[in-house]
């Protein structure tokens, strides 16, 4: 992504600290020196390969036909754009990311509000809630696929059988979750993993709010709803934005859950999985690159918006 674009987004977001500290221009190279290794490393490892992707995207190159390699113009882009698979995976990516981020944000908010109150065993409940986030993503996807969703002996259907038997019935519904509602099944497993993350950020936000003001509002007779609407929510807003942004960065790139739960089948293939498939299974290097470039173009729209959010938070001094 262009440095210039970033600079445009970011212009004017200087905090007081920079003005205070950057007053003296002397020794600018000795100042820059510690920055260079990280910067050079990152440009070489992340930006240069993308230039390679850009070049290959204009080439006719399939690893299965190595002799037929050459300049292909916009053929790959044409093939990618007219491919209904890519379009559906674009929609899937948007739906998946939006659903996971929104639902886990709401659940996380509810849980954070619950945990913000004092009750016996609060520390234990917090620890229990963090557990899903600490399971390796592939392991979590395997757990959902085999131990929970399995149609004949998974925990979900097992619990249904048990509940129905409790009421004397033997005809509990036993759906095959992964083929009946594949996308929702993938989303549910991701929501399980990401809700703790949202909860942790929002809880930290709630606990950074000054208790005096809430107390004062209560003394003045404000109801619980009024306190939430007028005091807690405005204070929490930047934490909600931060949680949503970070969640989107991670969820939009999700590969593990889609790969493990459905192997991209049944309309659950998102963009990262589709690019992986074109490259790793179809060996069409040219088209995979064109798809990669399209992914980046889409991400840049979201990213510019997202970075604007971060920089406005930055300006307000929340970070």
């Amino acid at each position, binding site marked *: 992504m262009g440095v210039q674009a970033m600079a445009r987004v970011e212009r004017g977001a200087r905090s007081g600290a920079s003005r205070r500290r950057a007053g003296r221009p002397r020794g600018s190279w000795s100042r820059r020196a510690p920055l260079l290794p990280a910067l050079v490393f990152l440009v070489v490892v992340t930006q240069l390969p993308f230039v390679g992707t850009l070049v290959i995207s204009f080439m006719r190159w399939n690893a299965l036909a190595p002799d037929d390699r050459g300049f292909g113009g916009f053929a790959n882009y044409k093939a990618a754009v007219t491919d209904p698979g890519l379009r559906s995976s674009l929609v899937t990516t948007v739906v998946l990311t939006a659903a996971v981020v929104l639902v886990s944000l709401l659940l996380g908010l509810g*849980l954070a509000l619950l945990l913000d109150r004092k009750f016996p065993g609060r520390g234990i409940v917090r620890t229990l809630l963090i557990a899903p986030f600490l399971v390796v993503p592939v392991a979590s996807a395997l757990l959902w696929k085999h131990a929970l969703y399995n149609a004949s002996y998974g925990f979900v259907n097992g619990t249904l059988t048990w509940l129905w038997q409790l009421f004397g019935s033997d005809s509990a519904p036993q759906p095959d979750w992964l083929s009946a509602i594949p996308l929702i099944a993938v989303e549910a497993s991701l929501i399980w993993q990401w809700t703790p993350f949202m909860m942790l950020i929002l809880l930290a936000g709630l606990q950074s709010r000054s208790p005096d003001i809430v107390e004062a509002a209560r003394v003045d007779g404000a109801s619980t709803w009024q306190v939430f609407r007028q005091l807690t929510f405005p204070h929490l807003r930047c*934490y909600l934005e931060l949680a949503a942004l970070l969640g989107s960065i991670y969820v939009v790139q999700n590969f593990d859950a889609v790969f*493990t739960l459905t192997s991209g089948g049944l309309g659950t293939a998102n963009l990262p999985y589709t690019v992986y498939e074109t490259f790793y299974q179809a060996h069409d290097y040219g088209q995979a690159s064109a798809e990669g470039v399209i992914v980046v173009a889409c991400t840049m729209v979201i990213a510019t918006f997202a970075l604007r959010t971060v920089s406005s938070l930055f300006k307000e001094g929340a970070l």
Partner: protein
Amino acid sequence: MTAQEGRAATGLLCRGIWGFLAWFCGLFFFLPFAWMVLTSFHGEADAATNPPSVGAALTLQGYREFFGASTGVSPWPPLVNSLTASVTSTLLVLALAIPAAYALSIKPVRKWTDVLFFFLSTKMLPAVAGLLPVYLIAKNAGMLDSVWLLVILYTSMNLPIAVWMMRSFLAEVPVEILEAASIDGAGLLTVLVRIVAPVAAPGIAATALISFIFSWNELLFARVLTGVVAGTAPVFLTGFVTSQGLFLAKVCAAAVCVSLPVLVAGFAAQDKLVQGLSLGAVK
């Protein structure tokens, strides 16, 4: 009962209900995790019943199977690969991120916010976008199926987050003390060791933790760029994607074993986890 006592009783009841609800939600979210751990200690036949047999006899058979009791396939090489890739890349991330964060906070370069946002913007470039050239370069350089290639990629993956985190921690070093120290004639090394390091130590720990977890969890690069030699633990787990008859206990044991380092590190440092994931924004 006076009105005041009545209100106190309602308050207590209310608090009880909310506490109960919090416990209920906590346990509900914990349930799949608990089921995973419980199933990993069940025999294969008990693990695959409908309705579930919660109270079935406990056994270590699932773990024995995971460690290759009947197949002879040991999970140790992938686990060691994961450990090598995660630890080495974490050290490399710290070595690159700490000086960079220093140049963005304590002695900031001009336009340091632009640089900071450039770091974050590379994180928004999806990993798949550069995957193919990396694969082709690695193939030509003979670096496919090598842990060191993963070390380089994981370092670049975690470096932006690490720079953001370390910057937010180093920004807390009081400038006045730094200036006073340099007026008193303290050298750069003294300043770094005596003033910066103590303030930054918890931040370094948080950065290392996050970097380790993300490297340990990574699948896409490892899946595409490694094979039999350098495959990591998540790649090993993908061997369980297709069903193999009665193998629930084995799968759950595998999931527990591979997640164990992250679980231990994460539970031990919950607060650091929050700081890290929010790029150091939430303290």
